C-alpha cells in the first residue's frame, strides 16, 4: 500500500470511494484501535478542528460513536438535532448548514432522512462531509465497520461469503454493505421476503435467496437487519410473528448448518423478531465488537478526511 491519503474530500457513500481508500481506512483503524485501548484514550490530532454533528433523524449508537471518535481525536464538537432547532421553523437545509459553517466549523457529520442530502450539500459548501445515514440510501461508516469486523474475525474480507438478511428495501446499511463487500472482493447474497428485496438488485453484483436456511448454509457471515417499520408505508408481510418464523435467526436454525457462521447486526436489535435473544448474546455473535470497532473506524475516517489535501 502506497497511498497515504483518501481520493475524496467527503465520505458521502461507499459508492464514491475506492478499494484503496477502504484499505487505507482499515490500516488507520488498526492504529486507532490501539489508541482506544490505552489507559488514556485520546490523541491530539484534531485539536484545531471543529466538527458539527447534524442529526436530522434519530440516532443513538451512531451519534454516540461519532461523538466519542471526535472527542478521542481532541476535536471541538457542536451537536444539533432537528427536533430542537430552527428546522421546525421552516429553515432550509442549506441555510441551516451555512449558518453553522459561518461559525467556523471544519467538518460536518450528518444524518438526514432524504437520500442524497449529503451529495447536494457537498456541491454547495466547503467543509468535509461525512454521511452518517441518508434515508434509505447509504450509511458508509456502518459498512466500513462491518467489513472491518469481518476482516478482524476472519482475517480478510476477500473471498468470504456474506448474506444480508432482512429488510433490504429500506436499509441503507444493506446498500453500503453491498458496495463495500463487493469492492473488497467478498461474495454477497441477500435474503428476505420477496416484498422486501428490491427488483433488479442483482445488477449490483449480488445474488438473492428467499430461503433462509439455504442462504445460511452457503455463507461464512450473516449480517442481520432490523425490520424498519417506521419506513414502511404499506404492509410488506402479514405479521412480525410470521416474518420471525421464516426469516428470524435462532439457535435451532444454526444447529442444522454444517459449519459455524459469524453473526452480525448493525443495531438496534429487535430481540425475538430478526434474531433470538440467546443467539444475539452467543459466541457466534460479534455485535458488540462491531460497536467497539465503530469508534475506531470513525476516528480513522475523521482523521483521514481532516488530513485530505487538495
Amino acid at each position, binding site marked *: 500500500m502506497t497511498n497515504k491519503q483518501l481520493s475524496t474530500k467527503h465520505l458521502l457513500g461507499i459508492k464514491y470511494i475506492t478499494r484503496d481508500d477502504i484499505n487505507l481506512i482499515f*490500516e488507520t483503524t488498526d492504529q486507532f484501535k490501539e489508541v482506544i485501548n490505552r489507559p*488514556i484514550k485520546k*490523541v*491530539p*490530532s484534531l485539536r484545531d478542528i471543529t466538527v458539527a454533528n447534524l442529526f436530522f433523524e434519530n440516532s443513538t449508537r451512531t451519534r454516540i460513536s461519532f461523538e466519542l471518535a471526535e472527542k478521542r481525536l481532541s476535536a471541538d464538537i457542536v451537536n444539533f438535532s432537528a427536533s430542537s432547532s430552527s428546522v421546525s421553523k421552516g429553515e432550509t437545509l442549506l441555510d441551516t448548514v451555512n449558518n453553522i459553517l459561518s461559525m467556523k466549523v471544519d467538518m460536518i457529520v450528518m444524518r438526514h432522512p432524504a437520500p442524497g442530502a449529503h451529495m447536494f450539500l457537498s456541491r454547495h459548501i466547503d467543509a468535509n462531509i461525512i454521511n452518517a445515514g441518508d434515508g434509505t440510501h447509504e450509511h458508509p461508516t456502518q459498512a466500513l465497520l462491518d467489513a472491518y469486523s469481518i476482516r478482524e474475525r476472519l482475517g480478510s474480507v476477500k473471498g468470504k461469503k456474506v448474506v444480508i438478511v432482512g429488510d433490504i428495501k429500506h436499509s441503507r446499511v444493506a446498500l453500503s454493505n453491498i458496495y463495500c463487500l463487493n469492492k473488497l472482493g467478498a461474495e454477497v447474497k441477500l435474503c428476505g421476503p420477496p416484498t422486501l428485496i428490491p427488483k433488479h438488485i442483482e445488477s449490483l453484483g449480488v445474488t438473492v435467496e428467499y430461503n433462509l436456511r439455504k442462504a445460511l448454509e452457503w455463507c461464512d457471515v450473516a449480517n442481520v437487519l432490523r425490520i424498519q417499520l417506521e419506513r414502511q408505508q404499506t404492509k410488506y408481510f402479514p405479521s412480525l410473528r410470521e416474518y420471525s418464523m421464516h426469516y428470524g435467526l435462532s439457535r435451532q436454525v444454526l444447529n442444522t448448518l454444517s459449519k459455524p457462521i459469524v453473526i452480525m447486526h448493525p443495531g438496534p436489535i429487535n430481540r425475538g423478531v430478526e434474531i433470538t435473544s440467546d443467539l444475539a448474546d452467543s459466541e457466534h455473535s460479534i455485535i458488540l465488537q462491531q460497536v467497539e470497532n465503530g469508534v475506531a473506524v470513525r476516528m480513522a475516517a475523521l482523521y483521514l478526511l*481532516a*488530513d485530505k489535501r487538495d
Partner: protein
Amino acid sequence: MGAGRIILSEQKLNLVLDRLTHQLLEHHGDFSDTCIIGIQPRGIPLSDRIVRRLGTLGNLHNLQYGLLDITFHRDDFRTRNEPLKASVTKIDFLVDNKKVILIDDVLYTGRTIQAAISALQHFGRPEKIELLVLIDRRFNRDLPIQSDYAGMAVDALDQAYVKVEWQEDGGGKVRIYPSKEDVK
C-alpha cells in the same frame, strides 16, 4: 545530484552500537525497572539492534521493549506537505514509575521527541525518560531537547540531510547529503 558522504562506516557503526549498549548497561544495570521504547518507523532498526546487543553483551533477555508511533501526536498534522501514514504502536506494559529509554535514529529539530514524550504520557507516568540516538545534530534544534546517549555528533547546516542506511544482516552505515533532494 550529489552522492552522500559516508560519515559512519559499517565497522565504526558496530563499535558505536557496542559503546551505546555498554553505556546503557553501566547506567541501568539489570534493567529491572527500565524499559526500552523505539520510535516508529526509523528508530526501530536501531532499537532492535540495541536490544539484541543487550542480550549478547549484557546477557539481558526478556527486556520490556515497546514500539511507539507518534503520528497522531505530531504538531504539524495538516500543515506538512506530505500526509503521514501511521505505524504500529505496541507497548504491552505500563511505564508507570519506570525508567524509559527512548530510541530514535537522528535527533534533529527535537519535534519528534517532543511528540514522543507527549505520546508516552498516555501509557502512564514514567519515573524518568532518557533519549538515545545514533546521530545528534547538535546545532539544528527547534526545542530545548538533548540526548542522553549519542552515537555520533554531527554539526551541519540546516539543509543538510543525514541518512542512516540499515542492512538486513544487521550492519549499516550513515551518509550525509548536502540536502534532502540529493538523496537518491
